[in-house]
């Protein structure tokens, strides 16, 4: 029995990178969804929610073909970086960003929408710009939602399989994530290692989530609690 620690480290790196990017990317999208009053906003919300419904194989397919070397975007990417999106860590990150997007944006948007408008109005009357209001009023009051969104996108990426199977190429240390490793072990009839690896992934993911939700309890929230 040989547990592939490289795969664990790779999967952790992927999950952390994707959660960090989604925190940065998700905040402006969530802000717009929470506060915009555009009548076609529901279409944007549907697009953001799409990755929940689409099978990961569809996302993988698009990274492989629609963003592949035969497409204009793919060719631009190659001219920029010298290699394809597929079979690289970067390709996995981009696929995972789409895959976990709704899991970050929806909790963010929900908690922004839940902030008392009167506080935002008060902040504006005191002369704060929308950006200042965001950082000093909205964000601190939305900490539970921000933590939930980040934790969910982390967990979702840890468990990702379909996208990685489609575009990863199973390269050890680069694209062989834990889920692929478990799949390989089962196919090779190595149930002992598959079991051990799966259990380890379960314990690791549970521990991380327990810590995150533990820190997220009401005791730590800043400001008035509903």
């Amino acid at each position, binding site marked *: 029995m040989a547990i592939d620690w490289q795969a664990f480290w790779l999967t952790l790196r992927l999950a952390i990178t994707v959660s960090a990017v989604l925190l940065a990317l998700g905040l402006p999208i969530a802000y717009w969804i929470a506060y915009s009053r555009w009548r076609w906003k529901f279409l944007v919300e549907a697009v953001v929610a799409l990755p929940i419904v689409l099978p990961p194989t569809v996302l993988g397919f698009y990274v492989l073909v629609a963003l*592949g070397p035969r497409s204009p975007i793919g060719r631009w990417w190659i001219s920029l970086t010298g290699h394809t999106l597929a079979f690289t860590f970067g390709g996995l990150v981009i696929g995972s960003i789409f895959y976990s997007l709704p899991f970050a944006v929806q909790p963010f948007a929900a908690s922004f929408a839940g902030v008392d408008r009167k506080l935002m109005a008060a902040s504006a009357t005191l002369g704060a710009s929308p950006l200042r209001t965001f950082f000093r009023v909205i964000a601190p009051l939305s900490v539970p939602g921000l933590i939930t969104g980040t934790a969910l996108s982390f967990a979702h990426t840890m468990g990702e399989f379909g996208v990685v199977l489609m575009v990863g*190429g199973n390269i050890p240390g680069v694209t062989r994530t834990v889920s692929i490793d478990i799949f390989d072990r089962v196919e*090779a009839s190595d149930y002992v290692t598959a079991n051990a690896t799966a259990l380890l992934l379960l314990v690791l993911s549970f521990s991380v989530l327990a810590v995150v939700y533990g820190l997220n309890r009401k005791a730590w929230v800043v400001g008035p609690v509903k």
Partner: protein
Amino acid sequence: MEHIAKNLACVLIVACILANPAAAFAQQTKNGTELVVAAAADLSTALKEISDSFEKKTGVSLKLSFGASGALTQQIQNGAPFDLFFSADMDYPRQLITAGAADGTSLYEYAVGRLVLWVPTDSALDLDHKGLKVLLDPSVKKIAIANPQHAPYGRAAVAALKHAGIYDQVADRLVLGENVSQAAQFVESGNAEAGLVPLAHAVAPGMQGKGKYWEVRADFYPPLAQGLVILSHSQHKKEAAELVEYLKTKEAAELLRKYGFTLP
């Protein structure tokens, strides 16, 4: 509130009444037997045509499931309800016979597969003169093969690379497809510059004009003798045996040859 529940109950009852005759009707129109077949991915084109002509002859239709031989063996050992298994080697069928999942007397070598080096049509690589050595070219950044852990063609690819003495130099550029179809797809989409795939894939009608291939010499890898077995839990062993007999006919042999297989 009550009349909503009553309406819902009426709708459900009507739906149940309508569903039953529909189900019975569906059963009646399917009066021919159906064989569920697990097959190695390299047969994905050949077996479809063989299945069509077999159905025309006997009325028995085939439901085909393609994948890596190792993956299919796993599923069968864990009770997957197949009638026949067409592997890309002889070892996986033997493994099933030993495990009691397949009939020992039904083992039959139905074809010999060939490995080829395949590149997209617009590739500048000179396959005919350099053969496998083109893989050392710096423009070849990724080489696609099937996963050697559970695909016989993947093992053959590794053997061929080792025999040619270039395995160590190209090992870090290999990308593994879950089965030979995925490996071929990596090359076809341009994401890998070259791949070692079955001849069956390179000559398939859908692939014509999409790439050029070079046959790897047969002595570079252990022969890909492909065997089939009838599975122990099959409910249609008579029809399965008919299919095996059909494969021994001239008609079937021609079809297999058309798709790049040689007969043992």
